[in-house]
C-alpha cells in the first residue's frame, strides 16, 4: 500500500521563539529531594500497617510441569500461619489476569509454565512464620518439556505453552487479533512508497541477531499492602499505572472500579517493571481468603521472575543501490514474552516499528511475533523496542556504507526521513529534525578525525512512539492560603514528574514553585491518568495540568475582577498575586473559596496511533576494544534529548544520563542466563551485575535540543527512553568501527574475544 501522510497536525513550522517563562525552563531543586535525603520519604515497604499479615510465596522450582501434589496441612499447622492459599481456594470468580491477554492464573492451576510461577501463598503474623509455612508445603511436580528458546517455540509441531487460544484482557486494543499458536501475536508493516524490485547489483546485507533477556532492577522491589472483602478492595502499591491496576482488580474480582482504591507511595524506581498489575492480584486474593490486611514485599530474586525485558531473535535484510539510496528493509523478529503475555504485544509492536529505521525506504516489510516460551514473563522496560532493534538496523546501515565506501554519517543524511514525512502508516508523521540531531552528535564526537587501532566511533538514529494514549486528566485547586494543589495521576518514580507538574502549574498561575503541591495518587480522589510510561508524563499528563491551570487562572481572574471591581482584561497573575498596573492583591485574599480548574489531554488523540509524538533516539559513542581481553572501554558517549522544550533541563539531563548507564549495562554485560531447563542461573545481584560508578563512560554529554515542536505544554515532548535505543546502537556501531562486528548482545568480554579470534 502507499502511505498518505496524515493531514494534521502542522509539523513543518516549529515555534522557535522562546516564550517569556518564569518557572518552566529552569531547574529548581526538586521539592521531594529533602524527604529522600533524610530517609523520611515512605516507599511501599516502609508503610506501617498494624495488624497486617505478612505474605510469602511458594514458587515453582521447575519451568514446566504438572502439579501432582500440593499438601498444605503441615503449613497450616505452623505457629503464626493464618492462611495458606492455593488455586483451590480461589472460587466463585475467574482467578485469571492479564491486561492485554487474560492468560495468567493468580495461583498456578494444575500446571506451572515457568520456574518462579506462584503456586501457593502463606499469610502469617510474621515474615519468619510465613517463610516457615512456605517451607512446610508439600508440593510435587511431574516435569514436562520446557521451551526456552523462541526458535524451538515457533518450530513446526512445537508443544503449546497455552493450549487454549489467547483471550483479550481488559485493556487489549479493539481489533487485536490473536493466533492460536505460541507465536500468538504479530505486528506487521508492509509499506511501499515506490513499487518495484531491488536491482540485481544492489548491496544486500542479511544477517541474524540475538538480544538478551535483562532485568530492570528498580532498586525497590515490588511492595503491596492490600485489604479486601466481598464489597471493596483497598490497596497501597508501588505501581506505575494505578488506574489500570484498579481496572484489572475490578475486572478480576468482579467489582465496579469505584469500589477499588489504589494509593501509591514514593516509588524506588520503575523503568517499566512496575507497569500494569504485578503482585496486586495475588495480594488481594490472599487478603480476601485471610480476611485481614496483608503485606507482600518482593525480594530482588522475586522481582527477577516477576517481570523482565524480552529476549529477542531476528533476521534482517537491508538493500541499497549503488548510489547510496536505501531501497528496502525487511525483518522477521521473535520476541520471547515468556509464559504469560504481560505487555508483550505492545513491546512487539514497538520493536516492529523500530526495525524499520527512520529512513525513506521504497519498501518495508516487518513481521514481529510475540512468542510464548517457558521462561518468566517479560513486559515493559525503558526504551523497549528501540533498545531491541535499533542496533540491528543501524549495524546494517553501517555495513551498507562500508560496502559502498561512503561515510556512515553521509549515508544517513541522504536517506533520513524529514519533518512531516510518514514514519509508520497511520501514525503521526515525523515531528523532529533528525539530521540536525545527528550532526550535533557527530560534531561533539569529532567525527572524521583519525583514531588509533582498536578504537571506533559510532552514531545511530531512530525514533520510537511516545505518549501511547491521550487519556490523562488533571485538576488544579486554589487553596485558601493562596497556593495551588495539582491533582494528577502520574507517579513519582524518580523521574521528577511531580516537580515538572508543579512547574507547569506555577508557570500558568504566576505562583512561586513552593506554593504548588502535587500530592501522591489516590484513585478515589485523583483524576484519571492512564499510565506513567511511554515518556508521557510531561507531555500528556503535563498538558492536562496546563489546561487545568489555565481554566483555574480564568476563574481566578473572573473572581478577582468581581471582588475588587476591576476589569478582568487588565489583570495578570504574578508572584502569587493578582496584578493590575501598580496595584496587586494576594491570592489568599480572594473570597470565593474552592476555585478549581479541570483539564484533559484529549486534544492529543485522534489519528496519531500510539505515537502522540516520536521520541528521538539519537546518540554517538567512541570506544576502545582491548583485543587481548575483549573488554570495551567507553571513552565518550553523546546523547540527544530532543525534547521540544525542556521544562526542567537538569531533570532532562538526569534522565538521559541514567538511561545511558542502563544502556551501557544492557549493551555490555547485563544478561539473565537461563539454563536449558529454563531455570534462571543468576537470580540475584551477586551474579547479575548492574552498572556501578566504574562503568560510567569516561565522558558523557547530553545535548538538549529545544525546537518547541512537541505537542505538550510549552512545546514539550517526552524524553528519558530514547537513549536506550540510541546509545545501544551507537556502542554497537562504534565497536564495529573498531573492527569487531556484533551479532549478539551483550558485548561481554568473552563474546568480544571470541568474535575477534574467530575472524
Amino acid at each position, binding site marked *: 500500500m502507499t502511505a498518505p501522510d496524515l493531514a494534521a497536525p502542522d509539523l513543518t513550522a516549529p515555534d522557535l521563539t522562546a516564550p517569556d517563562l518564569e518557572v518552566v525552563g529552569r531547574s529548581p531543586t526538586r521539592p*521531594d*529531594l529533602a524527604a529522600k535525603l*533524610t530517609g523520611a520519604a515512605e516507599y511501599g515497604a516502609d508503610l506501617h500497617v498494624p495488624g497486617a499479615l505478612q505474605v510469602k510465596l511458594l514458587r515453582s522450582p521447575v519451568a514446566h510441569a504438572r502439579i501432582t501434589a500440593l499438601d498444605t496441612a503441615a503449613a497450616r499447622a505452623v505457629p503464626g500461619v493464618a492462611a495458606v492459599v492455593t488455586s483451590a481456594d480461589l472460587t466463585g470468580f475467574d482467578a485469571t489476569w492479564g491486561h492485554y491477554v487474560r492468560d495468567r492464573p493468580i495461583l498456578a492451576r494444575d500446571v506451572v509454565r515457568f520456574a518462579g510461577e506462584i503456586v501457593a501463598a502463606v499469610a502469617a503474623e510474621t515474615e519468619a512464620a510465613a517463610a516457615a509455612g512456605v517451607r512446610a508445603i508439600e508440593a510435587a511436580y511431574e516435569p514436562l518439556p520446557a521451551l526456552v528458546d523462541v526458535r524451538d517455540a515457533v518450530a513446526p509441531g512445537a508443544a503449546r505453552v497455552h493450549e487454549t487460544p489467547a483471550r483479550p484482557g481488559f485493556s487489549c486494543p479493539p481489533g487485536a487479533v490473536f493466533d492460536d499458536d505460541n507465536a500468538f501475536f504479530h505486528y506487521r508493516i508492509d509499506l511501499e512508497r515506490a513499487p518495484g524490485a531491488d536491482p540485481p547489483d544492489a548491496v544486500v546485507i542479511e544477517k541474524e541477531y540475538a538480544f538478551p533477556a535483562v532485568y530492570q532492577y528498580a*532498586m525497590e522491589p515490588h511492595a503491596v499492602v492490600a485489604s479486601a472483602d466481598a464489597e471493596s478492595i483497598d490497596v497501597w502499591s508501588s505501581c506505575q499505572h494505578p488506574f489500570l491496576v484498579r481496572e484489572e482488580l475490578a475486572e478480576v474480582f468482579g467489582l465496579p472500579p469505584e469500589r477499588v482504591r489504589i494509593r501509591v507511595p514514593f516509588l524506588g524506581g520503575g523503568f517499566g517493571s512496575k507497569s500494569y498489575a504485578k503482585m496486586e492480584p495475588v495480594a488481594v486474593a490472599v487478603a480476601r481468603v485471610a480476611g485481614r490486611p496483608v503485606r507482600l514485599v518482593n525480594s530482588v530474586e522475586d522481582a527477577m521472575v516477576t517481570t523482565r525485558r524480552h529476549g529477542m531473535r531476528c533476521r534482517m535484510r537491508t538493500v541499497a543501490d549503488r548510489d547510496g539510496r536505501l531501497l528496502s528493509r525487511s525483518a522477521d523478529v521473535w520476541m520471547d514474552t515468556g509464559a504469560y503475555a504481560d505487555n508483550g504485544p505492545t513491546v512487539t509492536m514497538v520493536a516492529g516499528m523500530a526495525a524499520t529505521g527512520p529512513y525513506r525506504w521504497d519498501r518495508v516489510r516487518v513481521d514481529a511475533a510475540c512468542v510464548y516460551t517457558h521462561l518468566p514473563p517479560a513486559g515493559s522496560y525503558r526504551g523497549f523496542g528501540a533498545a531491541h532493534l535499533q542496533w540491528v538496523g543501524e549495524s546494517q546501515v553501517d555495513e551498507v556504507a562500508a560496502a559502498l565506501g561512503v561515510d556512515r554519517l553521509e549515508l544517513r543524511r541522504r536517506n533520513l526521513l524529514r519533518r512531516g514525512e510518514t514514519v509508520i502508516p497511520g501514525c503521526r508523521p515525523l515531528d523532529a529534525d533528525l539530521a540536525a540531531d545527528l550532526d550535533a552528535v557527530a560534531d561533539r564526537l569529532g567525527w572524521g578525525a583519525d583514531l588509533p587501532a582498536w578504537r571506533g566511533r559510532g552514531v545511530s538514529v531512530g525514533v520510537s512512539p511516545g505518549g501511547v494514549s491521550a487519556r490523562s486528566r488533571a485538576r488544579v485547586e486554589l487553596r485558601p492560603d493562596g497556593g495551588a494543589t495539582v491533582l494528577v495521576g502520574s507517579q513519582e518514580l524518580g523521574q521528577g514528574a511531580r516537580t515538572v507538574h508543579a512547574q507547569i502549574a506555577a508557570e500558568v498561575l504566576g505562583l512561586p514553585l513552593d506554593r504548588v503541591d502535587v500530592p501522591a495518587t489516590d484513585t478515589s480522589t485523583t483524576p484519571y491518568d492512564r499510565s506513567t510510561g511511554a515518556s508521557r508524563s510531561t507531555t500528556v499528563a503535563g498538558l492536562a495540568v496546563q489546561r487545568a491551570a489555565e481554566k483555574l487562572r480564568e476563574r481566578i481572574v473572573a473572581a478577582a475582577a468581581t471582588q475588587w471591581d476591576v476589569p478582568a482584561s487588565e489583570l495578570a497573575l504574578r508572584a502569587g498575586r493578582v496584578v493590575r498596573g501598580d496595584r496587586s492583591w494576594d491570592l489568599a485574599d480572594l473570597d470565593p473559596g474552592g476555585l478549581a480548574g479541570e483539564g484533559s489531554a484529549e486534544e492529543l488523540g485522534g489519528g496519531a496511533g500510539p505515537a502522540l509524538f516520536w521520541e528521538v533516539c539519537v546518540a554517538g559513542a567512541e570506544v576502545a576494544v582491548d583485543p587481548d581481553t575483549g573488554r570495551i572501554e567507553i571513552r565518550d558517549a553523546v546523547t540527544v534529548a530532543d525534547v521540544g522544550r525542556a521544562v526542567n533541563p537538569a531533570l532532562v539531563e538526569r534522565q538521559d544520563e541514567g538511561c545511558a548507564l*542502563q544502556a551501557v549495562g544492557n549493551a555490555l554485560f547485563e544478561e539473565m542466563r537461563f539454563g536449558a531447563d529454563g531455570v534462571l542461573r543468576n537470580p540475584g545481584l551477586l551474579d547479575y551485575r548492574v552498572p556501578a560508578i566504574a562503568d560510567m563512560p569516561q565522558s558523557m554529554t547530553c545535548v538538549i535540543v529545544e525546537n518547541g515542536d512537541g505537542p505538550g505544554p510549552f512545546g514539550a515532548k517526552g524524553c528519558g527512553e530514547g537513549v536506550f535505543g540510541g546509545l545501544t546502537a551507537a556502542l554497537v556501531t562504534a565497536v564495529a568501527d573498531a573492527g569487531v562486528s556484533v551479532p549478539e548482545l551483550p558485548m561481554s568480554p568473552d563474546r568480544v574475544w571470541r568474535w575477534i579470534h574467530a575472524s
Partner: protein
Amino acid sequence: MDVRLKVNGTEHELPIDDNALLLDVLRDRLRLTGAKRSCDVQVCGACTVLVGGEPVSSCCFLAHDARDGEVETIEGFAAEEGFAALAEAFARHNAFQCGYCAPGFLMTLKPLLARGALRSRADVEREFAGNLCRCTGYRAIVDAVCEAAGVAS
C-alpha cells in the same frame, strides 16, 4: 535474648533473635525505615548504616554484632548539625531521582568526610564502588560528593 542497642544516641533494650539482621531490627522493631532493603547480598549499598563509625551492609549484619558499637542511621545523621549543608550540595546537583539509594550513599559518605578521606574525584569514585544507583547515571552524585568534600571535580 534481650540485647542492648544504642541507635542514633538512644539506648534500646529489646529481645532479638540470634539470627536477626540489623536491617530488620532497625526497620521493623525500631521503625527506622531510612535504611533500605534491595539486593540482600551486600552488593547495592542501600542498607548502609554505621556501626562504631564504620559503614556496614545491615542486610548482612547480625543485630547482635552491633551490641558493642553505636549504630547510626540516616535518621540520626539527618538530625545532626551540618547535614543541611550536605543536603544543599546534593540538591544543587539534583543528585538523586527515586531516592531509594540516597540514605546508603549518605551513610557511606559520613565517615569519609569525617576522616577527610576524599581528596580527589578518583577517591570519590573508588569509595562509592559499593553503592548502586539505577536512576541517575552517577555523575550528579559524584559531583555532589565532590562539592561536599571540597574536592575539585
